[in-house]
């Protein structure tokens, strides 16, 4: 009996690596959020296009992705089959958390997509448009609670920028952090917070079903398929884009990096990737190689400035 039990346990454990993926993508956020959706869209596209036989996604949520990043940098080192999804939120979170692990400790491959921030209210809210929100914010900044992702992320930065643009002290923004799309969405739907702020994709199905009302989107110009005014049209001079990227493990060879980059490039030019982006409302902002490296460095520098401006980093 015990032989049977032990053998079946060992067998079970050994069987797992046998089905192991060609790629293992870490989504450093709770399931349901933007990074999770990016990782799962990659999974589908890589498999659909037969670029990879099997792809696994795992979630390591918390603190703007720095928890996942730290775990990834630790555990994936030198393993060319492991990827991590990240993005602008992570850049901010590394700064606000004074994270010991930074993007220098992974191998950035490419920027993949961009998504605009949307501000939503429950259908029965008395806030009808951007002007209504601004009026409320000016009257009493603390009375407007903003529900979004982790502290110091794009959602938080956008809320701060809006406050600053309309002449309200950004440090007075009453921001409530939730660990992932699902939990924040529940709080917004339940009317627990005044407004919700996050990527458009996270609210899309609720907006279409009439449960949430979108009062503004953070793009420079109106986006096709999204029936909402931009922040600028609403009288708030703020535009911001939440980009997402994919990075590989630290300590891989140049050949391994080139192979991964080639796979990613094949993926972003595929039909299933483009179709998925269209359905999710993500803009294709693919950027790879040295250009991406330079852009990343620029973003890190400017984010550091914005965060200091709005008082999130001392």
């Amino acid at each position, binding site marked *: *009996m*015990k032989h049977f039990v*032990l053998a079946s*346990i060992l067998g*079970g*454990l050994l069987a*797992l690596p046998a*089905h192991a993926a060609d790629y293992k993508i870490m989504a450093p956020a*709770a*399931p*349901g959020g933007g990074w*999770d959706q990016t990782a*799962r869209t990659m*999974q*589908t596209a890589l*498999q659909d296009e037969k670029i990879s036989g*099997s*792809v*696994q*996604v*795992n*979630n*390591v949520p*918390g*603190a*703007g992705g*720095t*928890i*996942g990043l*730290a*775990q990834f*940098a*630790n*555990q994936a080192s030198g393993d060319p089959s492991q990827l991590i999804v990240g993005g602008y939120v992570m850049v901010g*979170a590394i700064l*606000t*958390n004074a994270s*010991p*692990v930074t993007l220098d400790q992974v191998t950035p491959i490419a920027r993949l997509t961009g998504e605009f921030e949307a501000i939503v209210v429950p259908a029965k809210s008395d806030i009808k448009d951007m002007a209504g929100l601004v009026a409320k914010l000016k009257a009493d900044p603390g*009375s407007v*609670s903003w529900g979004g992702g*982790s*502290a*110091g992320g794009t959602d938080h930065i956008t809320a701060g920028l809006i406050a600053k643009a309309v002449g309200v002290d950004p440090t007075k923004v*009453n921001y*409530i*952090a*939730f660990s992932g799309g*699902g*939990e924040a*969405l*529940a*709080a917004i*739907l*339940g009317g*627990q917070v005044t407004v919700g702020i996050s990527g458009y994709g996270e609210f899309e*199905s*609720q907006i*279409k*079903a009439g449960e949430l009302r979108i009062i503004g989107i953070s793009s420079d110009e109106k986006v096709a398929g999204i029936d909402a005014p931009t922040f600028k049209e609403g009288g708030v001079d703020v535009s911001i884009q939440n980009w997402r990227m994919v990075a590989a493990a630290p300590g891989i060879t140049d050949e391994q990096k080139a192979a991964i980059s080639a796979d990613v490039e094949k993926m972003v030019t595929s039909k299933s990737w483009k179709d998925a982006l269209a359905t999710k409302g993500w803009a294709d902002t693919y950027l790879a190689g040295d250009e991406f490296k330079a852009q990343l460095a620029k973003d890190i520098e400017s984010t550091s400035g914005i965060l200091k401006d709005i008082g999130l980093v001392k």
Partner: protein
Amino acid sequence: MDTFGLLAQGFLVALEPMNLLYALIGVTLGTAVGVLPGIGPALTVALLLPVTYKLDPAGSLIMFAGIYYGGMYGGSTTSILLNTPGESASIVTALEGNKMARKGRGGPALATAAIGSFVAGLIATFGLALIAPFIVKFALSFGPAEYFALMVLAFMTVSAAFGESSLRGLTALFLGLALGLIGIDLQTGQARLAFGIPDLLDGIEVTTLAVALFAIGETLTVAASRSSGDERIEPVKGSVWMSREDWSRSWKPWLRGTAIGFPIGAMPAGGAEIGTFLSYSVEKQLARKPEEFGHGAIEGVAGPEAANNASAAGTLVPLLTLGLPTTATAAIMLAGFQQFGLQPGPLLFANNSSLVWGLIASLLVANFMLLVLNLPLIGLWVRLLSIPRHWLYAGILVFATLGTIGANPSVFELGMLLAFGILGYLLRQFGYPIAPVVVGLILGPLAEQQLRRALAISQGDLTVLVHSPISIVLLTLAAAAVIVPLVMRARGRGKVLSQLAADED
């Protein structure tokens, strides 16, 4: 078409031979992964997702549902027999279940867990079919203040169940709360008590702590005790089946567990564990023989096992009606839906009703299949205990270690497993209960985040905590859980209460 017509149509889908086969594969795999600590249903569904891509949507979702229900069931087997909870939702089951197993009553314990899971799964799945829209409204009315009140209730009832030595119980609870502080704080992004160790940034994994305290701690205790023959485990005493008395003591806890687990599972920040804690406390308060608690009371297995299966069905409520995944498994099922171009949410029931009802019907089928598969296996499982002790405990050590590495392959994690194992040994040596440590680790961070969210939204106004009828009711119940025993003691019934005192581990 009315609900029953739709459900009947769902059964037509679920009972197709191929779909039955998928359900069978699902429940078998689910039970297997539930048994292994660390490897949960979420990971299994994630592993299978790419494989099922070539199947039709109905078949693969049916298989996922089977894995989900099977995982909830499988966790109880190792909890009861080996004191090694496979999932955090079956930690409470180990408290009474393992005591029963050591008295030769492993059979009835496994049976009440299996049948309780079946009953709860059955009722909760019908609940999902019939009252999902109402339940989801109730769940969304829970804001941070209400969640905080729910956590307070869980704390109070659980500490009331710690027994007479409240000092020891509270000490253990605070140990758990302190461990819960470790990691990055969500609201401010600051690391707390991590001492610059990256592995500690994501906090302490509940299953690692539970497996270490329960299984490793116990193994060390056994190894350290000089006498080797005094506490011989009897594999089977009496029947392996439930007696008439077992049935009469089990059916009410099954129903109560279901009533507690289902709505809590439907809450976006509820979680299966909280339902099991509450169910355990309720059963202890209501039991006809409360003195048996801590020594193998069947109610303490029946209630929590029903609660964790009911909450598994509850999780599907926000998933199907709102597209809100509230557990890791649900999130991956959501990805499964999206893979087939389905968007769970307010429109799913309207746009894809045949698939939704097929899923609900196949949950009922999976539930029935689990019962049929598992009841005959009980006789085989309990014989695990007839393995000589030194081999059995060596096996438990291997099993616990492999499970932990399987979930998180890190040397630091393994070190934590050992360190907490030694902590578990010391707690046992000095007579401190184990369960409150785990309870503190699970509830502490949840309660803290919800309290801080509630106070931030109200801008520091404390009255927000008693602002809604739901929080008032929950807090009143919590106060009653503390005050009623005090009053009973004051009225000279201390003797009865001191008999309630029991070692929880």
